């Protein structure tokens, strides 16, 4: 009984963390290229509704996820076009993108309110999923949970072990230097922005297809902002972003259980816990100011105008 409950809590933690992780990893890549896209929330919502729409129209869960990534990337393309080509302010454009995405998803999702789709299927990993406690906790999830971990690993490998990743980090360090050496700064940044949008869309679709397989207006409930904060508090490092997402997910689930047990702490305070705990833990592990400055993309949010 105890084992079952613990396993269920861990499993729920991982599920709660997955949309945050996907969105945060996407934003991390975007920011590493030097672009600050505050529109994560909006891109997640549009991804969520697009995925739901395609799935419920008979496109299947896989079709829904593809649609969500395309929709997120399309939103990001709009952002990229405005900020990288027309040089609009990144902060203002990102905020506008979130508002736009909130409204657009509500409009597009009007007909879906109250309907459901089948939950994304679980994949039990042979043998491993039979282990007591660990099996149900870690090895009996849907494909996107495993996928999010693989994506984190792939992003880490790309950023720190490949030439392409080095070029991307260089963009975020100094666009002017990268341009002087002869790299297509805007093209590379645009690609990073698109990747961020696709991941945010996927994170949103995880909410509407797997977490709670239904559509509700504004169903991301601020997760896009949490993902943004995770990137900063994780000092732009993929594994730390994952750690942050899991802490957030874990405390969210834990405080729900505590509330369920009828402990006499005001629920408002308990609802604050995930935010406070995530910030405290990530601030503590990232308190070395020099290392933070070394990892932070120095050119973050600075517009790049190719000149002489």
């Amino acid at each position: 009984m105890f084992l079952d409950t613990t396993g269920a809590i861990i499993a729920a933690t991982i599920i709660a963390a997955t949309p945050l992780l996907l969105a945060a990893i996407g934003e991390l890549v975007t920011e590493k290229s030097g672009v600050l896209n505050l529109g994560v929330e909006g891109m997640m919502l549009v991804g969520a509704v697009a995925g739901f729409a395609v799935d419920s129209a008979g496109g299947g869960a896989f079709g829904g996820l593809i649609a969500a990534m395309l929709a997120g990337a399309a939103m990001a393309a709009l952002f990229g076009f405005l900020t990288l080509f027309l040089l609009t302010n990144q902060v203002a454009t990102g905020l506008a993108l979130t508002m736009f995405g909130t409204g657009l998803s509500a409009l597009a999702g009007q007909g879906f309110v109250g309907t459901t789709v089948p939950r994304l299927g679980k994949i039990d990993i042979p043998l491993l999923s039979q282990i007591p406690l660990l099996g149900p906790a870690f090895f009996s999830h849907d494909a996107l949970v495993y996928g999010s971990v693989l994506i984190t690993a792939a992003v880490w490998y790309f950023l720190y072990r490949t030439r392409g990743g080095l070029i991307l980090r260089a963009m975020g360090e100094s666009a002017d230097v990268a341009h002087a050496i002869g790299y297509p700064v805007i093209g590379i940044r645009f690609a990073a922005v698109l990747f961020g949008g696709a991941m945010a869309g996927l994170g949103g679709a995880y909410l509407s297809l797997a977490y709670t397989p239904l559509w509700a207006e504004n169903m991301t409930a601020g997760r896009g902002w949490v993902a943004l904060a995770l990137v900063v508090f994780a000092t732009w490092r993929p594994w730390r972003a994952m750690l942050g997402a899991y802490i957030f997910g874990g405390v969210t689930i834990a405080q729900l259980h505590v509330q369920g047990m009828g402990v006499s702490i005001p629920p408002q305070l308990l609802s604050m816990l995930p935010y406070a705990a995530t910030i405290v833990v990530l601030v503590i592990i990232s308190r070395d100011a020099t290392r933070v400055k070394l990892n932070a993309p120095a050119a973050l949010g600075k517009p790049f105008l190719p000149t002489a």
Partner: protein
Amino acid sequence: MNLPPYRLALKGITKSFPGVLANDAVDLALQAGEIHALLGENGAGKSTLVKILYGVLQADAGEILWHGSPVEIGSPAAARKLGIAMVFQHFSLFETLTVAENVWLGIDKTEPLAVVAGKVRETSERYGLPLDPNRHVHELSVGERQRIEIVRCLLQNPELLVMDEPTSVLTPQEADRLFETLRRLAAEGMTILYISHKLDEIRALCGKATILRGGKRVAEAVPAEESSRSLARLMIGQDFAEAERKPDEGRIGAKRLTVGGLTIASTSPFGTPLDKVSFEIRGGEILGMAGVAGNGQAELISALIGEEKVPVGMLALDGTDIGDKGPAERRSLGLAVVPEERQGRSAVPELTLAENALLTGHQRFSLVRHGLVQAADAARRAGEIISRFAVKANGPQAEARGLSGGNLQKFIIGREIGQAPGVFVASAPTWGVDAGAAAAIHQAIIDLAATGAAVLIISQDLDELMVMSDRICAICAGRVSPAIDRAEATTERIGLMMGGSFTVAGEAA
């Protein structure tokens, strides 16, 4: 007799920017194995010409011939493909990456990082440019950073190497070493286009010089047959008065600025902490501080300005402790500081000259009354500075960012000197400023000292320090050497001090 075609020939290169004709039908011809100087004042069009050559800019008109055949150079990558490499004045390096990673990013071949690291080590050893490929750039000295740029160029086996003001950041010893490397490269057949305004260097190093003035090619000279003065005259187009310092024993007065055991951490992750920095300057005296950039000058300047407050007992102005006072308070006590960065620190680029004059001068000239800006007074004040220091600007309402570096520097120096400060500190006062303007700035500072002010000049330019200073010290790794009299100072001796060979009183050798 058929002479081989020039390795590179530029014919009639013309490039205009809004309001400026930067290059006006410029010709340039370079042969194999020559070291060719490109000389000119600020704004003469050197940088524009080089950027066209390297594919960063495109010419409006004119022709580029490479080995005798016309070529289009559309991008730096295209230039590198032809065999043209460039070492920029402002390094194009990423501070948080390693040496090998930086080199890897700058070459077009896709070899594994480990192979590139091995080549960096090998090339740097072969040409006497020692480098550890695995160090991070932010840990390296400026001289080492330049080596990265050079090694990166050499790995591509270029036929033409362009160097933009390469020695402005080096100690004399480092510069000598660079010259040896360059001579060796030229002997192996490489063509080197060398841009500098240090005329002695050009006379020692370059076989030929092309001189630009106002965007036009005005002369070609053999530097060895010219004097520094005649070359300067070709650059400027007229004669100019060099600043002169007359020895005057009776002039030196009482202690005005005392720095005692100044020890502070750096606020930047790439900075240098100061370690027990001590010196004093008397009224009427000019102290020169030599040092390669990044050895604590920035930290010293921000401690003197008051951006960083320091513990009591480390900084005194005319006997008053100023360690815990802010910049405005220190200014009202008679301290004026001109930091190295003109745009953004000494002056606000987006504001007009009148507004910039008001920023540091409003107390002394009461340019703000009852909380209201006295715009007419500020404009008059800016106008005075402009006319007294012959600043080329479109009047007091011109934006600071529109001025060339040299003209803005004249304005800033004029703004501070005009307040008749008791203690005047300037960092790199003539960096990137042409000879005529530099002489004017030097003279103004010397005249200020003659009125009894104590002056500190922090500079990498030894010639400048030799002309102006009464005493010279050096800063290295956050420590400041004892000062020596100018009469005892030689380039070699100061060069050694800049490299850290000195003992501070009270320390073991």
